[in-house]
């Protein structure tokens, strides 16, 4: 039976960053994903590189974390980012009144937000609402979340990590309160395999509770469905957000030759097979028109729904639950040594999520190497296939 120091479950951005981080610390890593890599939450991205400005008024910690990660990603993955910055537009009285607080909250979180004259904003982006009352420039950008995650996979594979797609974990084997290995089902062959390991990282996102249940563990996760709509045409170069308290339908992200409005949020019980509701699509298109008039007149391209992995349980509407990152060491809760869960976060924070959980896994395994993922350029994504 093959042995790995750590088995990472979940082939999204978080799993990819975790596999890379652990590999850089000299640990042997196997990552398994039941479908294609990034076919869950990571792929169905809005594509915003968050400077953190959106969170500045509500959660200074998340805002700071986003800004720090934006700086790191620009260094290690520069050509995975359309770094054209972002505009926050106040288009009503509420937004206008909030502008001063918004800017000081951004500065508080180390985000260099700067108010610019509305005339200048209209010069930069001609299609934005001409009735804009105030405009703030922030260091947002666009990421291709699929290719960014593939760069972490490529970098992990280059350091020796083994990545297996279409491989579903069906059992987590334990003995005397410690992780011993995993049993997986390979879709390609229809056969099962066992791998021995000393630690398991549950990076299954909104499916984390189902994976934890295989080890008899409880993980508090609330899948929240978020819908996005893409239209043809690159209407702006900069990310355009509505300046107000974070709500639904207030961010437009350009990417290649398309523009994406997002998002909505509703709690769901099952993260599988999510589809947009017709009312979500019409709500998003009309919200987009307020930021960029005639957005909805562009040819419709696609609507899709992602399951966000919110950490925690709530009976409230999804957006009330924090987007904060949560690491659970199931050994410290006295339940199962060697089993770790990483939850929450967002595409922008994939690297730090990998770092936070890897710190704990490495410590558990007696490995005292530090995190080095912020130091090196990531491999280009095509190296994932060139190296295999």
């Amino acid at each position: 039976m093959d042995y790995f120091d750590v088995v990472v479950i979940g082939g999204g951005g978080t799993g990819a960053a975790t596999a890379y981080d652990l590999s850089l610390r000299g640990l042997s890593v196997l990552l398994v994903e039941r479908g294609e890599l990034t076919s869950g939450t990571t792929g169905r991205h809005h594509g915003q590189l968050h400077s953190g400005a959106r969170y500045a008024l509500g959660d200074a910690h998340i805002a700071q974390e986003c800004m720090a990660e934006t700086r790191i990603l620009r260094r290690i993955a520069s050509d995975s980012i359309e770094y054209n910055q972002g505009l926050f537009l106040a288009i009503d009285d509420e937004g206008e009144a909030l502008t001063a607080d918004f800017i000081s909250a951004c500065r508080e979180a180390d985000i260099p937000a700067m108010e610019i004259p509305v005339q200048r904003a209209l010069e930069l982006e001609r299609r934005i609402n001409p009735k804009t009352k105030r405009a703030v420039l922030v260091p947002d950008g666009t990421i291709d979340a699929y290719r960014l995650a593939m760069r972490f996979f490529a970098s992990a594979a280059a350091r020796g990590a083994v990545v297996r797609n279409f491989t579903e974990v069906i059992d987590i084997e334990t003995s005397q309160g410690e992780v011993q290995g995993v049993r997986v089902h390979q879709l390609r062959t229809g056969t099962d395999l066992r791998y021995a390991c000393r630690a398991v990282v549950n990076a299954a996102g909104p499916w984390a509770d189902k994976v934890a249940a295989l080890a008899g563990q409880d993980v508090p996760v609330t899948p929240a469905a978020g819908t996005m709509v893409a239209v043809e045409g690159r209407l702006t170069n900069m990310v355009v957000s509505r300046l107000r308290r974070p709500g639904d339908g207030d961010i437009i992200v350009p990417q290649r030759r398309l523009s994406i409005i997002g998002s909505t949020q509703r709690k769901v019980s099952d993260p599988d097979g999510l589809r947009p509701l017709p009312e979500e699509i019409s709500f998003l298109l009309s919200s987009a028109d307020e930021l960029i008039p005639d957005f909805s007149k562009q040819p419709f391209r696609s609507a899709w729904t992602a399951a966000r992995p919110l950490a925690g349980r709530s009976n409230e509407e999804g957006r009330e639950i924090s987007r904060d990152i949560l690491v659970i060491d199931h050994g410290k809760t006295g339940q199962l040594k060697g089993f770790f869960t990483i939850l929450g976060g967002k595409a922008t924070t994939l690297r730090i999520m990998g770092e936070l959980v890897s710190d704990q896994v490495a410590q558990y395994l007696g490995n005292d190497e530090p995190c080095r993922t912020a130091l090196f350029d990531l491999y280009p994504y095509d190296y994932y296939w060139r190296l295999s």
Partner: protein
Amino acid sequence: MKQSLRIKRGTDEDTLYYVYEVDLPSGSSVLDALEFIRTGTAPDLMYRHSCHHGSCGTCAVRINGKEVLACLTKLEDFAGTVPTIEPLAAFKHDKDLVVEPGSLFRRLPKDAIKIRISEWIGGEINRDPAGEANQARPGGIEHFVRFEDCIECGACISACPVTRQSWAEESLTASPFMGPAVLAAIHRESINNSERRQEMLELAKLPNGVAACEKHFDCSRVCPRMVAPGKHIEQLRKEIL
């Protein structure tokens, strides 16, 4: 809305066509249908997908023989018929609708720039019609950037009669036609990176480069992202004369 789909399943050695019925709201895509089938009657159905909005390039398949992105293809286009869904041709088949995409990625120009200066700077083959208002560059901004158009979905490789034959016989042919996506990438790199222009043109001059293109232009016809590989090949042809 009920719709039946005929899906090629299994491996090259063991192929069977299955018919599945899905029941989805109008406006759903073929990818939504595949998700419906996988989360329902066929949990072992293998297909590639990620972004669901035509920017990752993983979900290219052939429907009734034509290359499309499953996520951008509406189910109602096939109302009243039973479309046949198959994996891309030319690529090595894995299982069900999955092909091994590495044969494209390994041929792309190594370490090419993945980001470009926005359209109005030049080198554009198909201008973005929505970008008319953006053609003028705002004062004080050197340039905006954006990702390359090609999403490496492989549709053109599967549609090109030359690659379709020569990639499939890869073990027999020493150096098969590079293929439309690869030549388009070579041309883009020659524009994006002036230092590598000569190197890129040398690649295009190879016997399995531009010279091996037979000008069928199926590549441009199936390209879901307006890359128009055929035009890139024609431009390269002029530049290497």
